[in-house]
């Protein structure tokens, strides 16, 4: 049995997605149309015994050529070969949402009209003569409430029935004058072939010619004549009606729908149907209170995300630790086995480091799904648009950017709410500049290391503010260069507040969570393994520590005898753990990663960075917080390492040595504090400033790159984001380092 190809078309907010979910269940695939940042959803299922494949076309108000979404929906409808097209209309706003249907009626397709959200419309008092409507239109009409699973079975039956019926006659009537003009253009077109178009849709081609839709190219022997005729008819229509063609055609489309609705409406919607929603808006969308309320809503959302997320994060962490331990126990000595190292250090730790953010993502998207489905997000966009618009962004860019403070990955995924491709790309590209949660541990390490405690909070605030500033300036720059073009208009429908259904929200949440796990997970896995390999090979087969132990320069003891240590000339005492640490340090230095670190040193020297920072920066690419771990690794924490390095210039440092010892003792309780002390010792404040700026702006982590590639549909944008931000970071860090050095 052949698979039935279905398409869903309709306005945004018509409940198209919930209908799609109701038809397909979980059998769906979400991706992008090739080369563009427009979401493509395809799902599968069965109608009785007939298998079907349904495509959810981008939500639209018209099928002209002005936006990529409109073009894609139109091209898919023209050339996608769909057996049945299901048009989804919002029952509570029929007049407006049915206008698009008139465009479809000319396309010579088997149509089914689905009046969604019928339950809500009925509650509001609307009553329609559905069979009569079906007779007037010439194709099946069904009332549904997809989010409550009502009317879906009937819809399925109607789709099957439509699929077996012949394609119905087009019953669209535009009115005397327009029909007369169209007939003339149609006659000029005659029976001439129009390349690449179904001969049955000449009515539609005639309408497009009359509209002068420049996004469509028609070729054929009679096209030029038809174009000339269309120009003549435009003049005639304008002289007759006082309206230009596009105005008059839209006017006539509304006229057709209005006339049809008048005939089938048994009872009108009560005038106060939206009273409750309006009352809520009087507070939530208030000119003065709207923004403070929005700030509180967002604050609560983030607070819940990060506090409630902590518990499952702890579980996941211990789960992965347990797993690592179990895997390790399969070997008698895991440190000897490369496979054990790959499994534990490469895969389990790499993937675990990503999966650990899953609770945050699930909670954040749960919150956002609730805000979106209630209709509040549309209000938020309305409230924020003025501010965002100044920087070439859209009101809807705000929530994704705010999400970026938690993590860039869900932030970039949340740009899906933006309809316009250019707005979406701009938001996506600058989003990593919002200092994410993974960068917080870095600030916690570096800020106290380079700045006095009293400045700590101010510096931290400054980092966040600087990120936002650079992001906004970059957005302006992008809109004037690469993503130049007409700005998307802010013409947005504000649907009434609705009580979201649990099913819809869980579906959205699960979809995003799964996407995070699967897509970002696979690429992260690959890069984790790569980084693991780089830091494992080449192997160190000869340790200097062992030489020193053998030569007596170091003495292995159970625990360090503080009194003995003070004596000059005595061999340095080291414990078992210290030796392990020193070995690890040597392994890192000898590994490919260590070599790369030294190799890129000349490149990062102008910023005041050395090879150690270089290796840590490479690690930060895997995940930002790895920077801290990597710095710890190259410094191979332990007092011995410090003394070893200081050994040569002991006299020189004698003065402050006592002081430093005390400090080290005080801070020995905390690894981070010790590391901080080393960092303070080895790097100037100017380097610190440059490092902070570099980490804030440069190369977003690989998960971000992966998700940008996924969401933008092209490697080009992901690489641009990676390269562009790194170059900007380099320039700004260079400037910061040299300017700060002048004042030091």
């Amino acid at each position: 049995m052949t698979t039935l190809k279905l398409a869903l078309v309709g306005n945004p907010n018509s409940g198209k997605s919930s209908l799609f979910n109701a038809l397909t269940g979980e059998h769906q695939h979400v991706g992008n149309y090739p080369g563009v940042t427009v979401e493509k959803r395809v799902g599968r299922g069965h109608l009785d015994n007939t298998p079907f494949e349904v495509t959810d076309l981008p939500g639209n108000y018209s099928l002209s050529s002005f936006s990529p979404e409109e073009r894609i929906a139109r091209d898919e409808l023209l050339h996608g070969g769909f057996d049945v097209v299901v048009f989804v209309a919002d029952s509570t706003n029929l007049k407006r949402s049915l206008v698009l249907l008139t465009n479809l009626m000319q396309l010579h397709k088997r149509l089914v009209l689905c009046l969604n959200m019928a339950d809500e419309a009925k509650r509001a008092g609307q009553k329609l003569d559905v069979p009569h409507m079906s007779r007037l239109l010439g194709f099946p009409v069904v009332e549904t409430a997809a989010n409550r699973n009502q009317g879906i079975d009937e819809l399925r039956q109607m789709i099957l029935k439509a699929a077996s019926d012949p394609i119905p006659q087009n019953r669209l009537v535009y009115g005397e004058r327009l029909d007369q003009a169209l007939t003339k253009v149609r006659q000029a077109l005659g029976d001439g072939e129009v390349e690449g178009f179904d001969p049955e849709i000449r009515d539609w081609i005639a309408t497009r010619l009359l509209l002068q839709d420049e996004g469509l190219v028609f070729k054929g022997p009679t096209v030029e004549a038809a174009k000339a005729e269309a120009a003549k008819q435009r003049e005639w229509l304008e002289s007759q009606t006082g309206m230009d063609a596009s105005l008059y055609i839209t006017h006539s489309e509304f006229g057709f729908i209005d006339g049809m609705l008048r005939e089938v409406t048994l009872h009108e919607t009560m005038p106060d149907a939206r009273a409750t929603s309006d009352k809520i808006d009087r507070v939530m969308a208030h000119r003065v209170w709207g923004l403070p309320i929005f700030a509180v809503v967002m604050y609560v959302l983030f607070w819940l995300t990060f506090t409630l997320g902590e518990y499952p994060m702890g579980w996941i962490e211990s789960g992965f630790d347990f797993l690592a331990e179990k895997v390790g126990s399969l070997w008698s000595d895991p440190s000897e086995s490369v496979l054990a190292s790959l499994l534990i250090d490469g895969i389990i730790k790499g993937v675990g480091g990503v999966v650990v953010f899953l609770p945050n993502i699930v909670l954040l998207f749960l919150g956002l799904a609730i805000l979106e489905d209630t209709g509040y997000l549309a209000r938020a966009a309305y409230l924020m648009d003025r501010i965002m618009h100044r920087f070439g962004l859209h009101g809807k860019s705000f929530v994704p950017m705010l999400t970026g403070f938690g993590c860039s990955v869900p932030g970039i995924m949340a740009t899906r709410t933006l309809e316009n491709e250019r707005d979406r790309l701009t938001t996506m590209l600058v989003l990593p500049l919002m200092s994410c949660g993974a960068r917080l541990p870095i600030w916690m390490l570096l800020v106290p290391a380079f700045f006095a405690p009293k400045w700590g909070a101010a510096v931290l605030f400054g980092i966040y503010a600087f990120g936002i500033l650079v992001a906004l300036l970059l957005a302006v720059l992008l809109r004037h260069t690469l993503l130049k073009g007409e700005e998307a208009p802010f013409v947005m429908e504000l649907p009434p507040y609705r009580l979201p259904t649990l099913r819809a929200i869980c579906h959205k949440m699960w979809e995003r969570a799964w996407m995070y796990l699967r897509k970002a997970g696979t690429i992260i896995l690959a890069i984790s393994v790569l980084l693991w390999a780089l830091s494992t090979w080449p192997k160190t087969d000869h340790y200097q520590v062992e030489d020193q132990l053998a030569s007596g320069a170091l003495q292995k003891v159970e625990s360090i005898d503080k009194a003995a240590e003070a004596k000059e000339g005595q061999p340095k005492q080291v414990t078992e753990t210290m030796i392990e640490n020193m070995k690890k340090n040597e392994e890192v230095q000898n590994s490919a990663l260590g070599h790369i670190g030294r190799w890129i040193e000349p490149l990062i020297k102008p910023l005041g960075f050395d090879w150690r920072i270089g290796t840590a920066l490479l690690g930060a690419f895997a995940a930002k917080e790895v920077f801290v771990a990597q710095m710890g690794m190259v410094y191979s924490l332990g007092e011995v390492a410090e003394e070893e390095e200081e050994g040569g210039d002991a006299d020189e440092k004698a003065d402050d040595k006592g002081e430093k010892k005390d400090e080290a003792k005080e801070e020995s309780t905390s690894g981070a504090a010790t590391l901080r002390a080393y960092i303070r010792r080895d790097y100037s404040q100017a380097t610190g400033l440059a490092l902070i700026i570099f980490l804030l702006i440069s190369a977003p982590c690989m998960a971000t790159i992966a998700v940008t590639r996924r969401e933008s549909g092209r490697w080009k944008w992901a690489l641009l984001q990676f390269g562009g931000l790194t170059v900007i970071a380099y320039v700004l860090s260079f400037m910061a380092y040299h300017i700060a050095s002048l004042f030091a």
Partner: protein
Amino acid sequence: MATEGSPVLTRALEDYLETIYEFARDHGYARVKDIASARKVQPGSVSPALKRLADLNLIKYERREYVELTEAGAIEARRVLSRHQILTRFLHEFLRIDAEVADRDACALEHQLSDEAMDGITKLFEFFTACPQSKSGFLELFHNCHLMNAANPRCKACTLPASDQPKLSIASLSPGQRGKVRNVSARPGIRQRLLDMGLLPDVEFSVERVAPGGDPVWIKLLGFQLALRREEAVGVQVEELP
């Protein structure tokens, strides 16, 4: 040409009067040789003209070096000069004719134009420069109009019925006010979106509220709610409903 009440002056005499007025205004005095050099004539040929002006009681000229305007002369000179200035500005600012050419053309026009026509031009000019409603760039519309200059892109606004009412757009209404759409003019893509949203002639709407900072505007029409930026809202011409 000249109507009752104002003395009959030839074009040359008007020019002399203008010149004398300008010198008197700028330097405090006007000398015969200055007038001659400004008008680009021999000083000798100035005298007959000055004599005629003196006969008409417009200047005091007693074969001396200095010429003075009488009160009547000053009034007449100001009248001539203001005609010249308005015409120059009209030609330059409205019709965008090169400044120099405009000045020359104004000289030619100012003497020939009837007071009635001059009055009309003056009023039109004042209306466009002073009326707050004209700020919507009507003059721009004229200069960018496809019909006026084939190089311009086609504009859809001009085919709609003209209205004698001042131009109002959605953006000029405040929350609580109601209106009816008259016409929609915007860039093609945005215009189609506005039309698809139901902003069509004769559709009634009410302005519900505005966002912080006054932008976007939130309106209610055809039973649903729509937010649009002022940028887009100015393209929707409306009439206010009580």
